[in-house]
């Protein structure tokens, strides 16, 4: 009989430093999910927040950037300690296309890595544009390479790959190549840029969005974007939906439900 609360408790088995600010926590059970789906992670006594499932399946894990109280607390938890998880929630990436372009900024690669692995496994040819501030912050570079993707690096400071934005690299590849689908996850202004690229190059795209989430199950409206709900209708949206979202890259709700501009 399943636990009547939706919360599953997992023991932490390992914390892996991926970059100086990003860690993966591996848990002692399995989580079957589509690439792009997320879970609500409960750090007992501290906070609960959404995290993409960066390692679906048997070696369940999530990959988080330490940005505030909740993630900081998670980062100091040791193997043997327990966290609560509910989910998987939302709609993930629908994997299609034979020649795929993946554009990841920041922690976006956490959501995209399982997608890259699955796409390569289904014999698509995969280009990954991986952008970060600096070399040490590049997430899952080796993981993508090992999976068999062609990885293109961009850094803001030029410490690795080409200096500049991931979008510039994406533009170059899209215009040169024969991609039939683009996947992305990252800062919203990057997604807005890629949406424009998608329009001009006529390569359809799927992007995963982030909004402040309270319930994660489509009731509280805090993750609303133009009447859609990132927690249940997303986090992954298709080109068609994205292009109709007037709030995209513009406004989101804060914790009080107030509308604030997106930086």
């Amino acid at each position, binding site marked *: 009989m399943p636990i*009547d*609360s*939706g*919360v599953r*408790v997992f023991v932490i088995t390992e914390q892996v430093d991926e970059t100086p600010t990003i860690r993966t926590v591996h848990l002692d059970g399995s989580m079957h999910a589509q690439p792009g789906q997320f879970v*609500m992670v*409960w750090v*007992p*006594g501290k*906070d*609960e*927040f959404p995290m993409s499932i960066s390692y679906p399946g048997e070696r369940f894990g999530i990959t988080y950037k330490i940005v505030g109280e909740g993630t900081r607390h998670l980062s100091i938890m040791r193997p043997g300690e*327990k966290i*609560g998880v*509910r989910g998987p929630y939302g709609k993930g990436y629908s994997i299609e296309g034979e020649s795929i372009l993946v554009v990841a900024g920041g922690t976006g690669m956490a959501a995209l890595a399982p997608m890259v692995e699955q796409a390569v496994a289904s014999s698509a040819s995969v280009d990954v544009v991986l952008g970060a501030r600096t070399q040490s912050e590049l997430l899952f570079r080796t993981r993508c390479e090992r999976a068999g993707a062609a990885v293109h690096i961009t850094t803001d400071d030029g410490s690795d790959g080409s200096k500049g934005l991931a979008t510039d690299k994406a533009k170059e590849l899209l215009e040169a190549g024969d991609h039939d689908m683009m996947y992305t996850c990252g800062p919203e202004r990057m997604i807005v840029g890629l949406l424009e690229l998608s329009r001009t190059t006529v390569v359809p795209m799927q992007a995963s969005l982030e909004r402040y989430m*309270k*319930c*994660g*199950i*489509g*009731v*509280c*409206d*805090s993750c*609303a974007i*133009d*009447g859609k*709900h990132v927690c249940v209708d997303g986090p992954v949206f298709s080109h068609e939906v994205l292009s109709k979202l007037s709030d995209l890259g513009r406004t989101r*709700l*804060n*914790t*009080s*439900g*107030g*509308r604030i501009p997106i930086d």
Partner: protein
Amino acid sequence: MTELEVDIAGIRMRNPTMLASGILNETGRSMVDVTKAGAGAVVTKSVGLEPREGHPNPCVVELECGLINAMGLPNPGIDAYLEEVAVAQGSGVPVIGSVFGGSEDEIAEVAKRMASAGVAAVELNLSCPHAEGLGAEIGSTPDMVESICKAVKASVDVPIFAKLTPNTSSIASLASAAEEGGADGIVAINTLRAMAICPELGRPILSNRFGGLSGKAVRAVGVRCVYEIFDAVTIPIIGVGGVTTSNDALEYIMAGATAVQMGTAIWSEGAGVFSDVCDGLGEFMKANGYGSVEEMKGIAHR
């Protein structure tokens, strides 16, 4: 007037279903989408005078038969929220503004600003079980309920509905007090005070520990409350709590409700639940020879 149309305190609704307060109504656009899915009216999120973050996460627990929530009345404050109300009003269906506050005067003030936006009615949330000093505490005795209703009535022109708590030994007395205070309708019920504990972590799941139970689990309690209230007041009643099927809506209507609200059913069924319930009502009325929802109202009292 089609068979599903209802009139509640002068508000004409194309069907007797409304979106309940607190579910998909932080933004105007979401409310519009719910009306597109079939709701005959929408109630807004409960708003107060000032912005309020609500309780930290976790603020919701998914049970087999419902939800426990402790959102804690997050809201951007009435002034900022009026923008969302304006968007919702674009839907063309009646918008009912839900308000809360820590005192009579505060509630009256929020209600006044809400009414200024041209809402069809104001719903007073006197019943949130998980926000200290702002919900059920404020609405837990007949005296308090009566004087709040009086204060609000004196400050707005639109109909006012008192939303009552079932966490009481007599919801009928609260309803009578609301009627005495001039309320134009009763909304029943808000959530049942509840808790979920995670055994493996040995602690309550909700950050606020206590929350409110909604959904199927509470329907039979809500129907009982509406039945009791119908015997106590003459003003219309709006039934809420666990409505998920047309059969559930009929239970509330036959217990004495003029209309029903739905919240948690959106989680379990999706927003399509509004048109499903309406379709079911229409079919039931045809099969059983009822010409209007009004005809069915309260017939379980015969």
